[in-house]
């Protein structure tokens, strides 16, 4: 069912339970007016199967308003192009005053994504990347290089600086906060933790993360290698700066991937 909302077209999509509705954006997301007219509902995940985040972190709009807490808008996407996702994120960071959580389940094509200061000659195997026509994107956040595909789960938080009580808007506190949040979900799978700026299960890197901090807001985005094609890792070079815990791992452990099945 399609219905107009604020002048833009959204496709209603059944959410994980029959008690709430999530409007999923389909089609062009370039229209700035779309952002201002977007309406999403938060729902307590406690009674929903398939919810990915701890329910205690989410509140209904009415309850949140009652206690004066900021809302977190959730945008759930499926196989959106990572370039489009990054465009959306930067637009929300710089032009919105709301808090957002974006979840993209996979991207539509294998793509290399570099941090803002990444040098292609140092980070990627240029010859094979050009030969195989693998897209390469430079994102606006810091951090290293990843190769993402349909098996990657992307989670992004875009927040006002005062959105999280007691959280200092600097890289390490933000990483610590997100690490604890993800830990609540992923501890049931294995020994998940934040280790030297990487999300790991034991010694295996499960996800990279990167941030950008502006005057009033911050963004933290993560690419979880929920599944990946090991052949894709051959497109990446070993980074010059390697965390100590990875210095002793073999090549399969370096550059990403999980060591146990999720």
């Amino acid at each position: 069912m399609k219905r107009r909302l604020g002048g833009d077209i959204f496709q209603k999509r059944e959410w994980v339970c029959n008690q709430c509705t999530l409007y999923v954006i389909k089609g062009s997301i370039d229209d700035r007016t779309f952002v201002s007219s977007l309406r999403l509902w938060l729902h307590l995940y406690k009674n929903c199967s398939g919810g990915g985040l701890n329910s205690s972190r989410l509140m209904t709009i009415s309850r949140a308003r009652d206690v004066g807490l900021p809302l977190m808008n959730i945008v759930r996407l499926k196989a959106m192009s990572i370039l489009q996702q990054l465009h959306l994120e930067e637009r929300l960071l710089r032009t919105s005053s709301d808090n957002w959580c974006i979840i993209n389940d996979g991207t539509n094509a294998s793509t290399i994504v570099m941090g803002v200061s990444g040098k292609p000659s140092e980070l990627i195997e240029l010859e094979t990347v050009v030969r195989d026509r693998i897209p390469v994107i430079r994102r606006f956040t810091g951090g290293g290089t990843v190769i993402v595909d349909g098996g990657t789960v992307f989670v992004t938080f875009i927040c006002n600086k005062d959105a999280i009580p007691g959280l200092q808007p600097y890289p390490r506190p933000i990483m610590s906060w997100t690490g604890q949040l993800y830990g609540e979900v992923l501890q049931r799978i294995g020994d998940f933790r934040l280790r030297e700026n990487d999300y790991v299960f034991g010694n295996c890197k499960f996800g990279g993360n990167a941030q950008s901090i502006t005057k009033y807001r911050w963004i933290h985005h993560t690419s979880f290698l929920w599944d990946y094609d090991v052949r894709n890792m051959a497109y990446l070079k070993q980074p010059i700066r390697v965390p100590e815990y990875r210095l002793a791992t073999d090549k399969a452990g370096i550059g990403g991937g999980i060591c146990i099945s999720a």
Partner: protein
Amino acid sequence: MASRLWASRAASFLKISTFHRRFSSVLKDLKYADTHEWVKADGTSATVGITDHAQDHLGDVVYVELPDVGASVTQGSSFGAVESVKATSDINSPISGKVIEVNEELSSSPGLVNARPYDSGWIIKVEMSNSGEVSSLMDSEQYSKFCEEEDAKH
């Protein structure tokens, strides 16, 4: 430094967030913005950098995005960024004017921002369009108090 590194690793193993409680240095003859940049005025020109408090909280700087010489800067608005610990952080200008020089050394040695934030780690020099803006900034005492209050909130 070594004990702080050990404490940080222990905290990470135990999954505890660490908090910075060292006292950052400030210089008396500088003026400071609430976004943690400093400015040293010299007639109609000024030198700008980020403070010791900022570099300490950001972590090791690995890249500095510099503006072009000739670019305009506006008080309170971003003119560049530093990258550290997987994050880019905007640098906001404490004064308005035109960029007359950038610190090219930072391209090869971004760590100068950490090691010497108040001298060789300077970031841009500006020909000020309104030198009166400097008086709206905090002095060293006000800035020290500001940092203490900010850290105490978290």
